């Protein structure tokens, strides 16, 4: 069972993603509400996969992605974005994000992205 760290500043969004993941037999090992928490929790948990929101307080998702990637080049990170964040998504992919999903989330989209990333590995 793959372990996942869910990062989003809205508890509501975390719950949505977590539910989708749990229903599909993923093990959500942690939830972070901002980029700094995400970096810290990644160190601690070393999850197989991270879903990372882009717009977050304290430290945004892209900075967090870069920090995680700089220490763990093999990290699997999927960005969660909203419409209109094209350039940030591109930044994120350049920085090494494996894929992205767009809000509003649809369960099958989310799973498609996740399975592809975990499967590729």
């Amino acid at each position: 069972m793959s372990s996942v760290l869910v990062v989003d500043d809205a508890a509501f969004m975390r719950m949505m993603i977590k539910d989708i993941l749990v229903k599909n037999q993923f093990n959500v090992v942690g939830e972070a509400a901002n980029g700094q928490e995400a970096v810290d929790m990644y160190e601690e948990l070393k999850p197989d996969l991270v879903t990372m929101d882009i717009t977050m307080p304290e430290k945004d998702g892209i900075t967090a992605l870069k920090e995680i990637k700089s220490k763990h080049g093999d990290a699997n990170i999927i960005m969660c974005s909203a419409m209109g964040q094209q350039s940030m998504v591109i930044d994120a992919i350049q920085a090494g994000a494996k894929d992205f999903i767009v809000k509003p989330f649809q369960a099958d989209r989310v799973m498609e992205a996740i399975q592809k990333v975990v499967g590729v590995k």
Partner: protein
Amino acid sequence: MDNKEYLTLFIEESQEHLQAVNTHLLELEKNNGSKDIISEIFRSAHTLKGMAATMGFEDLAHLTHHMENVLDQIRNDQLTVTPAVLDVVFESVDDLEYMINDISSGGSGKKDVQGAASKLEALLAGDKAAETASASNVSPEKHSVIPEYDQYEWAVIQESEEQGYHALCLNVTLDEQTMLKAARVFMVFGVVEKAGEVINCQPAMADLEAEAFENEFTVTLITKEEPENLQAQIAGISEVTDVHVHVVKKETVQTKHEEQSITEEKNQELSPPSNKAEMPQRQTEAVKTVRVNTDRLDKLMNLFEELVIDRGRLEQLSAELKHSELTDTVEHMSRISGDLQTIILTMRMMPVENVFNRFPRMVRSLSKELGKKIELDIVGADTELDRTIIDEIGDPLVHLLRNSLDHGIETPEVRKQAGKPETGTVTLRAYHSGNHVMIEMEDDGAGINKEKVIDIALSKGIIAAEDVEKKTDQDIYGLLFASGFSTAAEVTDISGRGVGLDVVRNTFESLGGIVSVDSEPGKGSIFSIQLPLTLSILDVMLVEAGEEKYAVPISSIVETAIITKDNIFHSHGQRVIDFRGRIIPLLSLHQVFAIPGSQEERSQHSIVVINKGGKIAALMVDHLVGKQDIVLKSLGPFLPDIASISGATILGDGNVALIVDVNTLIA
């Protein structure tokens, strides 16, 4: 997916974000254009949009999306913040608020947002509007499966073939619902560029990045990679529904000599606004919190109260047994439970900010409506009060504030004539004072017209003419809170809608609060509200009547006294006493609660003088036991509406004492 389970969380978070938007917008208005604030607002709007779309509240998502566009332009200095712009944004926030409230009260959250949305749209700087229009007007032509190559490209293809490379043409189809197509294209190119060198793409790179294509695009590259490998890799990208790869050979296509300009260099001008958008580094420190259902907090409080009762018993037992080790242990436990009590009580505390923070908005819109210039100054917003009280004081405070704005502060012209600054100030102040929290609302307006108050009070029969002389100024101002009183010459829709300030007073009093008012003509008025810190632990005077013990809240006691039988007089068939020169009714606890045993034959009586909003009465009891902190328990659903009893408490010895509801004893 069934979203019902997320609804509460959704509503809670949405309201928080809306509040944040409101607060920050007001800040923005004050210190024009601070980037941090705009970023904060943008972030809230953005999160709100994402959540609303996920929950399927389309109108909500739609409007936040438009708002976000405007905010984005403000953030990128394409749009300056003017009051007119803010008015429109505020208006949309009102719509959002309406929708969220509708959702929270079980509605569908639907609203016609077209008006607000188009107003927002109109704000957008012209170039942006034109840009989006042109982007949507470009009708991407269906591109043939095999693209046309120019001479130069053919030359490259041929040359590479000679060096053992081959040219591959990829037809990629994206899912129709792909939302960030350019980003997907970027991912495809990421794979393709790793494999080889791109010599041609159709539509042109610039169009791909501007999303000016439907769902298909074609890339030609020079590579050594096997077609199957490349196909698999690209098919592995999310939202790519179809990939065709075929080898390009000179013979397979007819050569056409057409000039085609291919923009190879990456177009830096793409999606201009968001490129610059450095993510906001929030300066404010985020407090780490855990969300707890308030029911659980209430339950915790209840359990703790049980513990307090048991503690009382243990203390009593250990005092009787005089076993030193037991005494030590019990004392230690008492100390710990004392600390625990503080923690639990503070856990239920919320800063008054939760109530206050909706006022700036209100003052802003009301002052515009009234044509007055008013500034609201909030002091001590971090003062904390029990949640139950916070929930209740919002409406009465709104009422008081409206009253101050409408009747207190004068119009700029009047103020100027009176030699005051044109802008009036209303100060809302909250602070701790002993076991109470004081909330004061002070304005520098016209003050209360004493003569007018007296006239109205007389004409409405609220006081008798002969009493006027005896009243102090404060007493007269207090008449504002009497029922059926309204000083406004005409009823405006801001305050004075028939419901007078008496409703305000009643609400505060039901919370154990005291309202008072003072004023200085020409200088302004001040309304003070004293509220208890918490409702569940109460300071009471225990009294005895017959075999029973009763608790009278200290907050309603004026004083205690002993009177002799000959101090009691009869007037209009009722017993009265002379209390400090005032004739007040004398009630007997025995009679009120039909307690067995009579007290009539005594020569001396203990009395408790109680007060309800200025009216006082004496309550005759057998003994005064003493002051004590008690835990208030409701009587439960089986005993609703018991006259004159507001609850019960369990005393240290295990007996139950009923708490007297003083308000109902005084007519």
